[in-house]
C-alpha cells in the first residue's frame, strides 16, 4: 500500500480512519429525511427527482396511516461515482388531516418520529390555497421548527398554466403569480413560527429550481451532518435545461464576457486542475485498496 496519497499527504492509515469514521457515522445514524404534506403534493416524486430513486409514489387513495421508515437505495448516475450506490432513510408521514378522528394519534406519532430526522421537508402544492391544516399541525410541532423547510411544489400548474416548454421555465405570468403565492404562504407560516422560514418554489416534474431546494435542505441540516446529504446529491444543477437547447445555452455561456461569467471561468479552471489531481488521487486510492 502506498504510504502517501499524492499531494494530499493523507497516509493510507489516515485514509482508512477517514473511511471508518464515515462508515461508522452512516451506520450510527443514516441520513434521514421526513416528508410531510397533504396527499397529492408530490412527496415521493420530489425524492425521486432529487435522488433519482424509485421511491414508491402514492396510490390514488392515500393509505399511509402510520409513519413509515423506508431505506431508499440511491445509485449514482453520473461522474466519477457512477454506478456506486448508497442508502438513505425516508420517513413518510401520514397525510395531514386525512381523518380528524386520527389527528391526536398522528400528532403523537409526529412527536415520536421527527426527532430521528436530520431535516423535515414540508411540501405544499402551489395551487392549494387551503393551508389551515398545515398551520394547525405546524403550531403543534414547535420543537421541530428549526429542522423544517417548506417546498412549494407543482409551480408548473400555476395559472395561467402556460409553462414555457422551449426553455422549461415558468412563463412571465406564472412567475408573477408564483411570487404572490410565495409571499402569501410565507406570511401564513411565518405567523405561526414567529420567524423567517425557508419556502422554496419548485417543480419536481419539470426539475425547476431543484438546486435551491437541495441547498436549502443541506443548510437546514445540523452542520456536522450536512456533508452526508450533500454526498447524496444525484442531479446536476443544469438538469432543468432541455437537452435539445443545452449546447446552445452552454455555448452562449462560454461566449459571454460579463464579470460574473469570468469569475465562473476562474472557478472552472481551478476545478479542472482539481479534477486532474482527484483522478490521480482516486487511482491511488483504488490501487492501494486492492493491495
Amino acid at each position: 500500500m502506498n504510504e502517501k496519497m499524492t499531494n494530499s499527504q493523507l497516509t493510507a492509515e489516515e485514509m482508512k480512519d477517514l473511511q471508518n469514521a464515515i462508515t461508522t457515522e452512516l451506520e450510527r445514524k443514516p441520513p434521514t429525511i421526513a416528508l410531510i404534506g397533504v396527499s397529492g403534493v408530490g412527496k415521493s416524486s420530489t425524492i425521486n427527482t432529487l435522488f433519482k430513486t424509485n421511491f414508491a409514489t402514492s396510490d390514488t387513495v392515500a393509505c399511509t396511516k402510520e409513519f413509515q421508515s423506508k431505506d431508499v437505495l440511491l445509485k449514482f448516475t453520473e461522474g466519477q461515482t457512477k454506478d456506486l450506490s448508497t442508502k438513505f432513510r425516508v420517513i413518510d408521514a401520514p397525510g395531514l388531516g386525512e381523518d380528524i378522528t386520527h389527528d391526536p394519534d398522528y400528532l403523537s406519532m409526529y412527536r415520536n418520529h421527527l426527532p430521528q430526522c436530520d431535516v423535515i421537508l414540508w411540501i405544499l402544492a402551489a395551487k392549494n390555497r387551503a393551508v389551515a391544516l398545515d398551520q394547525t399541525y405546524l403550531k403543534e410541532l414547535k420543537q421541530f421548527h428549526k429542522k423544517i423547510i417548506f417546498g412549494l411544489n407543482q409551480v408548473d400548474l400555476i395559472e395561467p398554466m402556460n409553462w414555457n416548454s422551449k426553455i422549461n421555465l415558468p412563463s412571465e405570468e406564472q412567475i408573477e403569480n408564483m411570487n404572490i403565492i410565495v409571499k402569501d404562504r410565507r406570511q401564513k407560516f411565518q405567523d405561526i413560527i414567529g420567524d423567517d422560514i425557508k419556502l422554496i418554489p419548485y417543480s419536481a416534474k419539470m426539475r425547476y429550481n431543484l438546486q435551491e431546494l437541495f441547498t436549502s435542505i443541506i443548510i437546514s441540516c445540523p452542520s456536522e451532518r450536512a456533508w452526508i446529504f450533500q454526498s447524496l446529491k444525484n442531479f446536476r444543477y443544469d438538469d432543468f435545461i432541455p437537452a435539445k437547447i443545452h449546447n446552445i445555452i452552454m455555448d452562449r455561456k462560454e461566449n459571454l464576457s460579463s464579470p460574473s461569467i469570468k469569475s465562473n471561468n476562474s472557478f472552472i479552471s481551478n476545478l479542472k486542475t482539481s479534477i486532474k489531481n482527484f483522478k490521480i488521487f482516486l487511482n491511488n486510492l483504488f490501487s492501494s485498496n486492492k493491495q
Partner: protein
Amino acid sequence: MVEELTGQEIGRVLDELEKADEYAQKGALFSFDGLITFLSGIGLAAIAEKLKEYFKDGIVILIEFLKVIVGVA
C-alpha cells in the same frame, strides 16, 4: 424548435443557470465546513486539515470524493 429561441429566453436560462450555480457552491461550501466540524469533533482534526488543503480549489471535487466514500461504505 431550437432556432426559435429568443434572446430574452436565452437570457432567462442563463440567469437561472447562474442562480443554480451559486446555490450549488453555497451548499457545497456549507457541507465542507460541516465535514471539518464533524472530523474535528471525533478527533480527526489532522485529517480535516489535510482535506482542507487538498480540496481548497475544488470544493465540488470534494463532494465527488465523499460520494466515493459513501458509495463504498
